[in-house]
C-alpha cells in the first residue's frame, strides 16, 4: 500500500514516525502494581471540590470528599442517626446555651497527633475569622460573638468556644439552637491541624501535607480527574473501616458517568441522567437508588415590583393553576414528590404544613384560581402578561413550557419565557430589577426545618422573593427562643403555615437523590441528607 511504501523508503518519514511512537510510549503510564489485596471503592463525583480546606469549600461535592477525610464533633451512623464523632459524650445546660463536649482519647490525626479540644477551638476561630473569608462562617452564628467577629467588630479570640483542657470543649451560645448538634456534623465545622497550617501556610492542603482526622487520608488529587484516598490507620474507628482505598472520580457528564458505571469502572454514581431512567429501571432496577432529599425546587415571585407586589391573590392563583402531578410524572420522572409545602418531608421532629388546596383536584384548583385572578382584575380582555426566567437546561425548559401552557389554559395568562445562563439568572434574581417569576431551588444544610424556614425571614440573603412579613418573622423569633423542642416545633409549623398562605413562592417539587450502586457494594443506606460515608461501606465479590 502507499502507506507501507512510504514507510519503506522515506527515511525522514520513518524517523518522524519512530519519534512519535517513542514519545507516545514513553509518556504513557506504567500499569499500577496491584501488590497486596487492596479493596478500592470507585465513586463518581460530579465536579472537583473547590478545596479540601473545610473553611474554603462550599459545594455538596466538596462535602462528600471531606466527610471521608475528616470528622467533626458529631457524625452520622450508617443508619442515619446522629452519633458522636470526635466527641464521645456531651451535655447541654438547662437554658440550652452551653454545650460541653468530651472528646475521645483515641481520636488522632493521620500523623499520630491527638485531636485536641484546642484544635477545634482554633478551627472555629479560623472559620469565623474574616481573613479566612470562609463561605459558611455564619453556620455557627449562634455561638457567642461569631457574628461580630465576621463583621470585624471583635477579634477571633473572643469567640464563645473554649478548650477547657485537652479533651473538653465548651461552646456558649447567645440563643438556643436545637439543631446545633446537626450543624456540628457539617464539614465546615471539621477541625484543621494548627501545626500544619503554621508549618505549610496555604500549602497545608497539599496531598502529603494534609493531615486528616477522618477514616481516610488524601494521597493524590489530579484536578479534573480523580481524588485518591487511602485508609487512615490512626483513625479511632479504623477497625470498623472495611474499604482500604477510595477513588473519587470527577465525572462532569452524567452520561459519561453512566457509561463508566456500565463498563464496571465505578461502583457508585453521583447522579443518574434523567433520559436513561426508563432503561435503567428495566435493566438494573435493584441498583437504582432514588430517595427523598432535603431540597425544594420552586418558582419565586419578585415581591418588590408589580404585578406581584402586594398581590397575594394573584400569586395564589398562579400557584393553584400548576398541576404538579404532571410535572413530576412527565417532566422530571425520577420519583420526585410534588411540593405542597415549603419544608420537604423527612425532616426531623417536624410535620410540614400544606397549601390549603393540596387535596383538591386540579379542576377544582383551576376554578378557584380563575375566581382569584378575576378578583385581582385580570380577565380575557385584560390578560396577565408576565415573564418567567429560568436557567438554560433541557429540564428547566420543559418545566417552564409546561407551566406556561397550564397558566394559559386555565387562566389565560400570557407568559414570556426567558432562558438565561445560570450565573446571569443568579445575578438578575439578586438584583430584583427585571425579574417577575424566576426559577430557583434551596437545599437544606442540616436536618431541621429551620434551614428552610429561616431563609424566608426578612433580610436573609437567600430570601430571593424579598418576602417580608412581620407575622412570619415574629413567629420565627418565638421559635428561636424555645428550648423545649415540641413547643419550638409548633411555632415553626405555624410560621410555615403563614408563609404558604402568603404565596411568596410556588413550591413545585421536592428533590430526590439518585445513585446507581453496584451490587458489589454493601451498606449503602438511603437518607434524606444524602450522606454516604465510605467508611460505612464494604465491597464483596459477587
Amino acid at each position, binding site marked *: *500500500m502507499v502507506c507501507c511504501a512510504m514507510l519503506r523508503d522515506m527515511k525522514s518519514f520513518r524517523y518522524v514516525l519512530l519519534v512519535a511512537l517513542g*514519545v507516545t510510549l514513553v509518556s504513557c503510564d506504567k500499569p*499500577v502494581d496491584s501488590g497486596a489485596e487492596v479493596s478500592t471503592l470507585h465513586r463518581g463525583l460530579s465536579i472537583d471540590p*473547590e478545596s479540601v480546606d473545610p473553611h474554603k469549600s462550599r459545594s455538596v461535592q466538596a462535602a462528600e470528599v471531606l466527610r471521608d477525610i475528616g470528622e467533626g464533633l458529631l457524625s452520622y451512623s450508617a443508619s442515619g442517626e446522629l452519633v458522636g464523632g470526635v466527641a464521645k459524650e456531651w451535655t447541654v445546660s438547662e437554658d440550652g446555651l452551653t454545650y460541653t463536649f468530651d472528646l475521645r482519647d483515641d481520636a488522632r490525626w493521620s500523623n499520630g497527633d491527638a485531636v485536641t479540644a484546642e484544635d477545634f477551638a482554633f478551627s472555629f476561630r479560623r472559620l469565623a475569622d474574616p481573613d479566612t473569608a470562609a463561605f459558611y462562617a455564619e453556620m455557627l452564628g449562634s455561638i457567642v460573638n461569631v457574628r461580630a467577629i465576621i463583621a470585624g467588630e471583635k477579634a477571633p479570640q473572643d469567640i464563645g468556644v473554649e478548650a477547657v483542657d485537652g479533651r473538653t470543649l465548651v461552646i456558649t451560645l447567645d440563643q438556643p439552637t436545637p439543631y446545633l448538634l446537626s450543624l456540628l456534623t457539617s464539614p465546615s465545622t471539621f477541625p484543621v491541624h494548627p501545626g500544619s497550617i503554621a508549618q505549610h501556610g496555604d500549602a497545608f492542603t497539599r496531598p502529603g501535607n494534609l493531615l486528616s482526622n477522618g477514616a481516610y487520608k488524601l494521597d493524590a488529587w489530579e484536578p*479534573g480527574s480523580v481524588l485518591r484516598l487511602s485508609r487512615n490507620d490512626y483513625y479511632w474507628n479504623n477497625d470498623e473501616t472495611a474499604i482500604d482505598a477510595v477513588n473519587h472520580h*470527577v465525572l462532569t457528564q452524567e452520561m*459519561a458517568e453512566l457509561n463508566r458505571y456500565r*463498563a464496571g469502572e465505578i461502583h457508585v454514581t453521583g447522579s443518574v441522567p434523567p433520559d436513561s431512567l426508563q432503561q435503567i429501571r428495566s435493566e438494573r432496577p435493584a441498583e437504582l437508588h432514588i430517595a427523598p432529599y432535603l431540597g425544594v425546587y420552586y418558582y419565586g415571585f419578585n415581591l418588590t415590583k408589580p404585578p406581584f407586589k402586594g398581590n397575594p391573590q394573584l400569586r395564589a392563583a398562579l400557584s393553584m393553576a400548576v398541576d404538579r402531578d404532571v410535572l413530576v410524572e412527565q417532566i422530571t420522572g425520577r420519583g420526585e414528590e410534588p411540593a405542597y409545602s415549603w419544608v420537604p418531608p423527612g425532616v426531623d421532629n417536624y410535620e410540614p404544613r400544606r397549601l390549603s388546596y393540596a387535596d383538591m383536584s386540579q379542576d377544582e384548583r383551576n376554578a378557584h384560581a380563575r375566581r382569584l385572578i378575576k378578583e385581582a382584575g385580570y380577565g380575557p380582555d385584560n390578560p396577565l402578561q408576565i415573564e418567567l426566567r429560568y436557567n438554560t437546561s433541557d429540564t428547566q425548559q420543559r418545566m417552564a413550557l409546561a407551566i406556561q401552557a397550564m397558566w394559559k389554559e386555565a387562566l389565560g395568562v400570557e407568559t414570556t419565557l426567558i432562558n438565561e*445562563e445560570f450565573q446571569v439568572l*443568579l445575578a438578575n434574581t439578586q438584583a430584583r430589577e427585571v425579574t417577575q417569576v424566576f426559577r430557583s431551588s434551596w437545599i437544606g444544610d442540616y436536618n431541621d426545618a429551620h434551614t428552610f424556614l429561616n431563609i424566608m425571614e426578612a433580610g436573609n440573603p437567600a430570601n430571593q422573593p424579598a418576602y417580608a412579613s412581620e407575622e412570619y418573622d415574629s413567629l420565627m423569633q418565638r421559635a428561636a427562643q424555645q428550648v423545649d423542642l415540641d413547643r419550638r416545633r409548633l411555632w415553626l409549623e405555624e410560621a410555615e403555615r403563614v408563609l404558604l398562605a402568603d404565596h411568596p413562592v410556588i413550591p413545585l417539587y421536592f428533590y430526590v437523590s439518585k445513585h446507581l450502586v453496584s451490587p458489589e457494594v454493601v451498606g449503602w443506606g438511603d437518607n434524606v441528607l444524602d450522606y454516604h460515608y465510605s467508611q460505612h461501606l464494604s465491597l464483596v465479590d459477587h
Partner: protein
Amino acid sequence: MLRYALLRLLGAIPTLLLVIVLAFLMVHAAPGGPFDDERTLPPEIEANIARAYHLDEPLPAQFVRYLSGVLRGDLGPSYRYRDHTVSELIGNAFPLSLKLGAMAMLMALLIGIAAGSFAALRRNSAVDRLTMALSMTGISVPVFVIAPVMVLLFAVKLQWLPAGWSGNEGIARFVLPVISLALPQIAYIAKLTRASMIDVLASNFVRTARGQGLGAYAVIRYHALKPAMLPILSYMGPAIAAILTGSVVVEEVFGVPGLGQFFVRGALNRDYTLVLGIVIFYATLIVLLNLVVDILYGVIDPRIRQR
C-alpha cells in the same frame, strides 16, 4: 538573523498586552462573579471574600495587581480550584491536550493520506466511492455523537477499552479519545488528498513516468506524493484549530483533564484567573509559533529578511 528574531519578539509584546487587557475586560464584563451561587451569602461574608480576593478594588487596580503577577510569572490562584494555582493547572492540562492532539493529528495524516491516495488510484471504483462516503460521514457526524457511541460499543458492550480516563493506566485509555478526535480530520484529509492526488496524477511528468514503465505505487512514492501534499499543508492550520476546539468535547465525554475542559469550566464558573491564564497561555503560544514560522520563512527566503 538574530536581530530579525529579536525585533519580531519585541513586536509581539504589545500584541500580548493588548490580548491581556481585552481578555481582562471581557471576563469582568460578564454578569456574575466567581463566588456567586444559589446559596447566596450574607453581605458581611461576601465583603470578606471580596477583600480576600481583591475583588473589591477598582478595576484598574485589580488589573495592575494581576499584570504585575503575570510579569513575575505568577498567574495567580484559581478562584474555583482554590487549592491549585493556574500555572499548575495549565502545566498539568496542556501536555495532556498536546499529546492527545498530536496523536490525533498523526493518525489523521497517516490514515487520511493513505486512504485518499488509494481512492485516487482506484478512482470511480466501488472502493473509491466507499472511502468517500465514509469520509462524508466522518465530516458530518459531530464529535459529541461519535464519541459516546464508541464508548457504548467498545467500552460498555465489548469491554475492549476503558470507558474513561481517571483511574485507568496505560495506552488503552488514549485509544478512544484519540480516535474520536482524529475521525473528522481523517475524513477531511482523505478527501483533500484524493482531489489533489487526482490532479497530480493527471500531469505530464506522471504520464511520462508511467509511460516509462514505472508501477503505480512507485509513481506515487517518488513523483506524485510530494506535490499532492501542498493542499494538506495549507490545511494544517485549520486542522490544528479544529483539534483544539474538538478536544473540549472529547475531554468532557472521556473525562480527560485537558486544557479545553478547564477553559470551559473556567468560563462557566467565572474563574477569572483560570480563564485569563489560559488565554494568555494560548496567545503566547500562537505568537511564538507565528514567530517561529516567520523566522523559518526568513531562513528559506533571504529576501524576506531584508525587508
